């Protein structure tokens, strides 16, 4: 295919093709191919989802009350968010109202996920794109201590503390068994941090690994385990008992105190470790202003965290809802998940079949028939040994969702851009403060890889404080004598209508998530999920429009053509979740070819 222009990007696939497969430090399986020009600048990008599990067909014919458990297993990283979306979809279809305490507990669980996921993403999936582990060995622990103490009063900051970590790291590296740090891009000119900052960040990598396991105990208390806590259509499964006999068998004061303490620690760790690290790292990379992609053009958020139970209207959602088109921040458009003309999925470049592929389908009418055919004039390799894909043909297991025909970016940056555009001080003020702290950067700076990473950090802090808000709200409600956690009026399927359809939505850590359900004769008739990484990782559509991952890689210079550090950095800034994006269904009884089991 020759060069063409779309969404303000000039695509040119004539240069050297570089393939990265697998893309690591993400959830699931992903491949990316780019073309570099003679100056090693990316002039074309092709992102491919490389797995497919078929969860929606598996759901067909099952009890809608069980669907949360199936959909929760779409993803163990954003664990719980699909389950919450699912119970909301069923409750929407059956018009079930949940108690206020259930709303507070669900919000606390969803916010717990945001805090946990953002923290783990930053330190364990993303940090190594910015932080050179090997360089940390050269750091002077005294200088590291001085740096740490200049940016935060977090107590673990003495020279001896950093020296101990450095010694352990030194021993580890000298052993020659580098484990997960093997074959990293250490020493690359794309790394900009001084050794002291690298040592501080590596130290916090280990601290965050210890701390994250405590954050999720909130899920364990309310949902029994993590990953994959338990949920309930009509409320939450955990009963509350503050006063009476048997309180030890329910959520009691001891359990609530534990939740409260973890919330305090989340706020403290985010404010004293995560955000100072983020700001420090950003200060060294602020001139690396690539990766903006669609963020300055088209962003969308469904909104989430309903303040009061059962009201999913825009004004009741604490995470902002809306869409911005063509970079016009003055207009935040309303979105309607039920309107068949708004959200549609296309398959012209995905390994699926539609009767008419020039048209998109709304999720309630979704069709998915797998059609694995790597092909096209530029395809190289065989059916089971792909060397190079052809983006003019079908090239991904991800479909292409579009909102009113537009490719959209979703995620923390989208939420912050929309919150900012709406003038909501909870989102605007932290952005303005961060830009000021980084030396008075203009607002346009946030439309970048670093902006995406920064928005995630700011949102982590926001979420930690909102956990406190909903905890206090629940305690006030309990004090007022309401301890209800479930509504069982419509628990029995005999109370349900013969036909029903509903939609549930959340803002997953990675972005806008929707589940669409049709219920017939008390069983699931059709179930469709459109998930954040389907939006961000989408391949091209019939108009040739590229998705958010692809757009974000455009025009980025790469320091070394054979080391994909900059590519990883930008892709990771989206926190891709491939198991989520490639969950779609195939019709029952579809004949497929097999490999022989020997």
């Amino acid at each position, binding site marked *: 295919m020759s060069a063409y222009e779309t969404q303000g990007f000039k695509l040119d696939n004539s240069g050297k093709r570089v393939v990265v497969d697998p893309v690591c430090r993400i959830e699931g399986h992903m491949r990316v191919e780019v073309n570099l020009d003679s100056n090693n600048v990316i002039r074309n990008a092709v992102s491919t989802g490389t797995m497919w599990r078929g969860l929606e067909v598996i759901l067909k014919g099952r009890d809608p009350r*069980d669907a949360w458990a199936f959909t929760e297993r779409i993803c163990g990283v954003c664990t719980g968010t699909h389950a919450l979306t699912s119970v909301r979809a069923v409750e929407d279809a059956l018009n079930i109202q949940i108690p206020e305490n259930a709303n507070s507990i669900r919000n606390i669980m969803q916010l717990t996920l945001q805090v946990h996921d953002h923290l783990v993403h930053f330190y364990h999936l993303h940090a190594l794109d910015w932080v050179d582990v090997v360089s940390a060995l050269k750091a002077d622990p005294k200088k590291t201590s001085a740096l740490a103490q200049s940016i935060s009063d977090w107590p673990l900051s003495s020279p001896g503390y950093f020296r101990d970590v450095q010694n352990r790291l030194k021993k580890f590296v000298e052993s020659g068994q580098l484990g997960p740090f093997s074959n990293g891009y250490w020493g690359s000119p794309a790394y900009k941090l001084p050794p002291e900052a690298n040592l501080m960040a590596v130290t916090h990598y280990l601290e965050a690994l210890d701390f994250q396991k405590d954050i999720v105990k909130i899920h364990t208390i309310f949902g029994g385990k993590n990953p994959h806590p338990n949920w309930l259509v009509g409320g939450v499964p955990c009963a509350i008992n503050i006063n009476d006999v048997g309180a030890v068998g329910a959520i009691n004061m001891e359990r609530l105190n534990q939740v409260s303490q973890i919330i305090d620690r989340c706020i403290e760790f985010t404010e004293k470790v995560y955000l100072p690290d983020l700001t420090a790292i950003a200060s060294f990379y602020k001139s690396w202003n690539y990766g903006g992609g669609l963020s300055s053009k088209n962003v969308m958020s469904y909104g989430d965290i309903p303040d009061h139970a059962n009201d999913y209207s825009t004004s009741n959602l604490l995470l902002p809802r809306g869409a911005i088109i063509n970079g016009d921040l003055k207009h935040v458009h309303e979105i309607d998940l039920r309107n068949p003309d708004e959200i549609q999925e296309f398959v012209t470049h995905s390994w699926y079949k539609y009767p008419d592929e020039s048209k998109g389908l709304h999720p309630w009418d979704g069709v998915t028939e797998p059609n694995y055919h790597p092909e096209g004039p530029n395809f190289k390799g065989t059916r089971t040994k792909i060397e190079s894909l052809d983006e003019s043909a079908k090239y991904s297991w991800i479909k292409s969702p579009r909102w009113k025909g537009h490719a959209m970016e979703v995620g923390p940056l989208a939420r912050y851009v929309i919150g900012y555009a709406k003038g909501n001080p909870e989102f605007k003020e932290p952005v303005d403060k961060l830009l000021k702290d980084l030396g008075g950067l203009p607002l346009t700076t946030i439309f970048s890889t670093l902006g995406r990473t920064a928005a995630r950090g700011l949102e982590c802090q926001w979420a930690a404080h909102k956990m406190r808000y909903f905890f206090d709200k629940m305690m006030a409600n309990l004090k007022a004598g309401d301890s209800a956690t479930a509504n069982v009026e419509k628990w029995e399927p005999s109370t349900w209508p013969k036909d029903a359809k509903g939609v549930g939505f959340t803002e997953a850590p990675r972005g806008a998530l929707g589940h669409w359900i049709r219920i017939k004769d008390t069983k699931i008739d059709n179930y469709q999920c459109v998930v954040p990484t389907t939006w961000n990782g989408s391949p091209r559509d019939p108009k040739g429009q590229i998705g958010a991952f692809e757009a974000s890689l455009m025009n980025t210079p790469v320091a070394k053509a054979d080391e994909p550090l900059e590519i990883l950095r930008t892709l990771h800034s989206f926190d891709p979740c491939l198991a989520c994006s490639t969950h779609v269904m195939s019709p029952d009884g579809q004949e497929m070819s097999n490999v022989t089991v020997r």
Partner: protein
Amino acid sequence: MSTETFYEVMRRQGISRRSFLKFCSLTAASLGLAPTMAPQIAEAMENKPRTPVIWLHGLECTCCSESFIRSAHPLAKDVVLSMLSLDYDDTLMAAAGHQAEAIIDQIRKKYKGNFILAVEGNPPLNEDGMFCIHGGRPFIEVLKETAADAKAIISWGSCASWGCVQAAKPNPTRATPVHKVIFDKPIIKVPGCPPIAEVMTAVITYMLTFDRIPELDRQGRPKMFYGQRIHDKCYRRPHFDAGQFVENWDDEAARKGYCLYKMGCKGPTTYNACSTVRWNGGVSFPIQSGHGCIGCSEDGFWDKGGFYDRVTDIKQFGVESNADKIGATVAGVAGAAVAAHAAVSALSKARSGESDQSKGGK
């Protein structure tokens, strides 16, 4: 000497030299070796490198990896930095693409027959295996190649052990558990969706500490964690025996912590350690938090009726029954115990790298 050996790790964790040598004698005895072998075991443990682990991901949701990093004892960072060498794990590793793939080749060559292969997820067999693509090829190819050089395989979670959610009916991708595509290696199944973090690290550290794979039941699960049903050790069991049941969500009985049997709890038919080890450092487990067990560590738990349907197979209720008796009725698992037995001594070789363990004795 710069490598932190197993011995150094034990010392750092407060184990005395005396205890260490005693441990080596016990290990020798448990391996059926003469007491004179103890110094050689001590020698090997003091000097050998950390066991390399390749952790592959098939069709899965990454909940097993997420669970693993939640381990409170030992901490995940200590496992990764000091106990084993997690050389390949696409969820955590720094490298990607060619640089990542090169590691698999290196480990396979350098530690041929001497590394552990941990598998999270499973291979789909439909569409020529291309429902899960790894480096442009079907995941099943990568799995088979890597398994061929591994000493032993750990099947993490219900995906690798049984098939789990993507294998629920009608299993559109023909997702297939590891033991149905790999036949010539010992396979340790650690089922659960996900498995309990501390069970995962306990299985690994057991193997590293005792130089053998744990004793497995006929379905290939470590007996010490999967030998009893959740119901057998459930703290709500007295309410079951007294006939005190939750009848509806959030009713008085729910607020008193009565038995969840009538709400569909699968504790009576599920073999796992949830009611004893509990979750996330022992904080709670599903029943304690008010929801019945959904049986996530059992084969085919997605297709055994709804999660809120009452368990009616009373035959399985006797406390005297154990996993082996149930397992014995499952077809096609007899081979696992044989393979497991053969692997008892396998891990000692795995950890000694390329060197012959018998040389270098003083």
